[in-house]
């Protein structure tokens, strides 16, 4: 009898310890610290790369984060993710040209437009599974590109793109590189925080469950179509935000923002860093940008290098760099633990 009580007590104790751990993991303090650390990483990058590059990197990271939600967490590979980046960018460009002079309002419009586009396309494509999902999205992306290039050429400027000249309003001045940097960094942190909350919630666990076995999740009583759609829309919206920032950062929008071929870069960045991990997406975004920005300067055959790197990831480092680091760390930790326990025994 006493034994049972003791056992119960032990279980309870364990439960509480683990619970506390879980709670602090998701706690406010930790999140703030994480955000500060990410901010510091980007600030460290500035003196080496210049503010404009750090800004580019941060925007790219936002787009990769949005893609990671869809691909890394929910396991749905899309080859049409740039459509929403493009929708966000073009909406900002057009809004600032025809509707408003306020870039912040334009960003809101861009995000809303991307969200709506995501809702419409998502409603069709989330019903499709596997490879066909990737390719169907690609088809929609291609249609978007075509719309910009041809039927809407008169307002989008077609191939030449669209220059945005209303970049400053009130205190908001996107002509100023320093402002751009801080604004984009703040945006990145916001997006990260949001996705951090989403992915560590029950919803996040559900997404990972869907990734592993969607059918099984249906037999847990979840309408997976709905959640897939919600995730798709969320990813599209965040991507649209990234697109809106791209437009303001360059003061220029061009069809390249929704070029289907550029999608591979996002997939690559996501995998490189480690898919299904927000830090992986950040790291992947930074390293991909480093590779594509610096490598061509020193090395003409960067396509070759990219190919080899991709193969290496697929064959050797599935978890990407972050996953590799995690494995390395847990390996070291395990060794340290076993080492210390041995010590304890010898003592």
């Amino acid at each position: 009898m006493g034994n049972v009580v003791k056992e119960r007590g032990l279980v309870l104790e364990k439960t509480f310890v683990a619970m506390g751990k879980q709670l602090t993991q998701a706690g406010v303090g930790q999140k703030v610290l994480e955000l500060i650390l990410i901010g510091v990483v980007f600030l460290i990058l500035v003196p080496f790369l210049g503010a404009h590059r750090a800004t580019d990197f941060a925007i790219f990271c936002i787009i990769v984060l949005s893609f990671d939600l869809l691909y890394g967490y929910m396991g749905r590979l899309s080859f049409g993710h740039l459509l929403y980046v493009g929708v966000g960018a073009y909406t900002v460009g057009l809004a600032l040209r025809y509707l408003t002079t306020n870039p912040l309002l334009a960003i809101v419009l861009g995000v809303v437009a991307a969200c709506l586009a995501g809702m419409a396309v998502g409603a069709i494509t989330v019903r499709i599974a596997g490879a066909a999902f990737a390719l169907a999205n690609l088809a929609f992306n291609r249609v978007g590109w075509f719309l910009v290039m041809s039927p809407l050429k008169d307002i989008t400027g077609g191939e030449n793109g669209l220059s945005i000249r209303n970049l400053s309003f009130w205190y908001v001045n996107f002509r100023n590189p320093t402002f751009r940097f801080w604004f984009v960094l703040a945006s990145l942190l916001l997006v990260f925080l949001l996705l951090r909350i989403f992915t560590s919630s029950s919803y996040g666990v559900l997404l990972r469950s869907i990734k592993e076995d969607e059918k099984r999740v249906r037999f847990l009583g979840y309408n997976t179509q709905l959640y897939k759609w919600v995730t798709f829309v969320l990813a599209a919206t965040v991507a649209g935000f990234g697109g809106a920032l791209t437009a303001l950062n360059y003061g220029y929008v061009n069809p390249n923002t929704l070029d289907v071929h550029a999608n591979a870069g996002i997939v690559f960045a996501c995998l490189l860093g480690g898919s299904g991990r927000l830090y992986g997406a950040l790291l992947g975004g930074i390293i991909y940008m480093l590779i594509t920005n610096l490598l061509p300067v020193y090395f003409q055959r960067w396509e070759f290098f990219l190919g080899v790197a991709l193969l290496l990831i697929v064959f050797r480092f599935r978890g990407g760099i972050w996953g590799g680091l995690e494995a390395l760390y847990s390996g070291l930790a395990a060794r340290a633990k076993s080492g210390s326990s041995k010590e304890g025994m010898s003592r």
Partner: protein
Amino acid sequence: MIYAIMYGLTVGAVLYLISVGFSLTFGTMRVINFAHTITYTLGAYLLIASIRSLGVPFFWGGAVGVAVAALAGYGIERFVIRRLYGESLDYTFIATYAVFLIGVDIVKWLWGVFPKPVSDPLGKTVDILGFVFPTYRLLVILLAIVVFFGLELFMRKTMVGKIIVAALDNREGVRCLGIGVEKYFSLAFVLGSALAALGGVLYAPITAVHPYMGSHILLLCFAVVLTGGLGNLRGTFLASFALGMLISITGRYWPAGSEIVAFIAMAAVLLARPIEA
């Protein structure tokens, strides 16, 4: 109009030759093979290389191109695809994309970035009911049809073909048979690569030969294969010709939209018949 249909058929024929291998690979191995386009490009380049350096006539050059590209296809299967066998779709997707990137760079390294000229090997025209057609185009269409029936025959009559068909139908089921299906799949892969190379060889005199020639046709290929149904060989045949025709006819009345109709058609088909695979 007759001409437009005729040229729609040529486009369809080339699309078929490239897509069928793609469809085959997907149906049997569940691999979306980006590298497919590099065998296509390779076919065209090897054709040129063998004409230039060996001085062989076009058709022998073409044979060399197809053979070597098939070999390259085997290499890709052996060293990339087979290692990812049964893995998640995404990884094969990405690995073959990597192969594509490497392949493009190797082509650039071997032959340079400049487009290469290839002449029409026949250069004659045929007069049918008052309509004049280049013989070469008729040949391309004819070859596509021959390949189609050849494949049908192959799938029906030979053991390998039967296993591949069974695999297309139910992959897990075939694996349960306990035969070394991998061997047959790899054959299907090489066959697909060879057909893609054939497509490249045949299209070379009509189009421009350059390192990125594959990446462009790839998107259309996706459209064809999805419209026809992944792994559905007859569907692929019909879809390539239907889309080829659609492209050609739209081009006549709405030039800007000629290519996008293929994707719209694909989206429509997917809408009507979602793929759960």
